[in-house]
């Protein structure tokens, strides 16, 4: 036996050892070689296409979280490293992205993408590989009906429950001033439609008549004819199950027809900092459910707002907050499980822990049912005096609900 042969056997042995170490890797970080490098987290986000606006917000949130964690000693003593792919708002693409992240890139953990339409295919892939899947923005009923046991929605409430506090407030109004008719316009998107439908069911049950109930495809850009229907109905309340550009275009179209409702509520768009720039002074009185306010006094929220404001010069919005929350939830699970690696055993430990425990986040303490639905409700915000103020529920109130809303 010559030296070369010895080397060969040695190399073989070393390779076998590495292989074994790889298979049984994922011991706690303090336990040596397997856990010394950075924790790699894979994400696919809609950075271009229809959801690019909120997608970029989520990206800012994830990146801020990673930076914050790395500044503060990392997760399980290891640095975290994000790999973010662009799924172009495309549901086929997002599944392929997660497949790639888990399978060929070999990431340790994954975070969810933005919006129901992308969350479902992504969660499917994560489940096939036994990965924990915490997501910042898939709130529609469909997400929780697929039998995912690895999914957790990192926000206070599912889409159907977003308007709960508003429904309660409307129903509590005295008979004389209570609105009698309502018009609904919702994007054909599970999340956007879910918010409007949740409110519609509650109001209809209480006898507030539905006079317009329009659903439009996501690519709709002209809202003249939908606005004409709503204006023609003279509904007391207008509710938009909206994302962003649809809400803005619909509001302008309604104003052009001189339709003046007593109450106007739109999901998502009014929480976007671009919204007042687009609508101008006519935002006054517009309501929106929001899962987040920078003023909330949850312990970690202050740190988040300070850190984010230092980094970006502006306070975070809901998209960034939900992304940060996702990071907090996964970090809590990894810390409790004492591991952060792709092994079935570790991922299962984290999933089981989240099913049984509450996590303190920037949007408040979160806990989930068996399908991953968070057990809370959204705050209701209103533009009051040109500023976003939380008006419902009473215990979080920053300003009183303005009703009827001023003319726009």
């Amino acid at each position, binding site marked *: 036996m010559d030296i070369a042969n010895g080397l060969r056997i040695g190399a073989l042995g070393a390779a076998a050892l590495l292989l074994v170490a790889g298979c049984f890797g994922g011991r706690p970080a303090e336990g040596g070689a397997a856990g010394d490098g950075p924790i790699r987290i894979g994400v696919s986000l809609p*950075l*271009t*296409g*229809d959801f*690019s*606006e909120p*997608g*970029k917000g989520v990206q800012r949130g994830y990146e801020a979280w990673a930076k914050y964690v790395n500044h503060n000693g990392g997760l399980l003593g290891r640095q975290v490293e994000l790999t973010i792919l662009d799924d172009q708002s495309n549901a086929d693409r997002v599944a392929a992205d997660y497949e790639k992240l888990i399978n060929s890139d070999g990431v340790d953990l994954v975070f969810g993408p933005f919006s129901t339409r992308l969350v479902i295919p992504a969660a499917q892939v994560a489940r096939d590989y036994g990965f924990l899947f915490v997501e910042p923005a898939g709130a529609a009923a469909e997400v929780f009906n697929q039998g995912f046991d690895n999914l957790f929605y990192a926000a206070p409430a599912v889409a159907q429950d977003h308007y709960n506090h508003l429904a309660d407030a409307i129903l509590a109004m005295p008979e004389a001033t209570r609105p009698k008719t309502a018009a609904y316009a919702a994007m*054909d998107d599970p999340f956007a439609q879910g918010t409007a439908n949740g409110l519609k069911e509650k109001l209809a049950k209480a006898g507030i008549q539905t006079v317009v109930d*329009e*659903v*439009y*495809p996501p*690519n*709709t*850009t*002209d809202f*003249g*004819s*939908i606005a*004409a*229907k709503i*204006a*023609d109905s003279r509904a007391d309340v207008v509710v938009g199950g909206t994302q*962003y*550009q649809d809400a*803005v*275009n619909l509001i*302008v*179209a309604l*104003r*052009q*027809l*001189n339709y003046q409702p007593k109450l106007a509520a739109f999901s998502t768009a009014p929480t976007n900092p*671009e919204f007042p*720039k*687009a609508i*101008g002074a*006519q935002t006054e009185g517009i309501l929106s459910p929001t899962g987040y306010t920078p003023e909330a006094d949850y312990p970690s929220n202050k740190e988040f707002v300070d850190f984010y404001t230092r980094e970006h010069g502006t306070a975070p919005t809901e998209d960034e907050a939900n992304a940060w929350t996702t990071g907090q939830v996964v970090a809590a699970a990894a810390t409790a499980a004492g591991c952060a690696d792709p092994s079935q055993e570790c991922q299962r430990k984290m999933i089981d822990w989240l099913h049984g425990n509450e996590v303190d986040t920037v949007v408040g303490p979160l806990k989930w049912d068996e399908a991953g639905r968070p057990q809370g409700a959204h705050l209701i915000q209103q533009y009051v005096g040109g500023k976003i103020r939380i008006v419902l529920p009473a215990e979080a109130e920053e300003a009183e609900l303005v009703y009827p809303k001023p003319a*726009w």
Partner: protein
Amino acid sequence: MSLVFQSLVLGVLMGGLYALLAAGLTLYFGVMRVVMIAHSAFLVLAAYLAWAFTVQTGLDPMLSLVVTVPLFFVLGVAVQRLLVARLRPATLTMMSVLLTFAVALAVEGTLGFVFTGTHRRIPLSYSGARLELFGASVALVKLIAFGLAVVTLVGLHVLLKVTRFGQALRATMQHREAARLLGVDTDRIAGFGFGLGLATAAVGGTALALDSTIYPSLHWHWIGPLMAIIVVGGLGSVAGAAIAALLLGVGQNLLQIPLGTTWAQTFFYAALFVTLILRPQGFFGGRLAQRF
């Protein structure tokens, strides 16, 4: 009743805007048999320039036309001379789809890079202003867009009918070889025709920006309906496209009342199918690009 009338008014206004947005497409096809997928991307580019102009200077977005119209004309000539003219004549129409598809992606990518993906809207003091017309509301911004469409289309029509350049352009459309025999520099004319088409995109994009929220990928929502309009109208006919745009705009807005938005949107494509089955040369243009 008032809803029907209101929808009719909205439909006419929308049809006018569609006619303006589609005008360039018919020119490119008429002059050079080029299917210009990037037209709507240039519309969005013009809309962004109008937005940036207003945000930077605080002036009315319409003033941006002073810069964008000549700029787009030059850009159009450049695109034609440097890119489209290099395609082989035998496969021009098909390859132009691929080429301009790439141009569209490049424009969209550049917009996203420069202006980010954030959805923008020009803040206008008169965005909600309106006039009453027999009980229907007419939004001022939609009326301005309609006015821009009328002025541009009439101007285009006069240019093509009356001027020597227009005659040369029409001659080039009708029979390139014959035009060349008569001394028309068809290569130059084709470049100018393309520039003219893109100049209408500058006007159209500005009109669009007055009353919509813009974002880099918006052009994909527009190219389909615009293509349907020029096929229904008769490829290469500006007047045909204008009539088709009005009819389709009104039809879509009226169908919206009984059918809802989702089905009303399919009206354009239904019209496209019917046209291709019954009258592939289009309903209003007569034979392909034979007259204006």
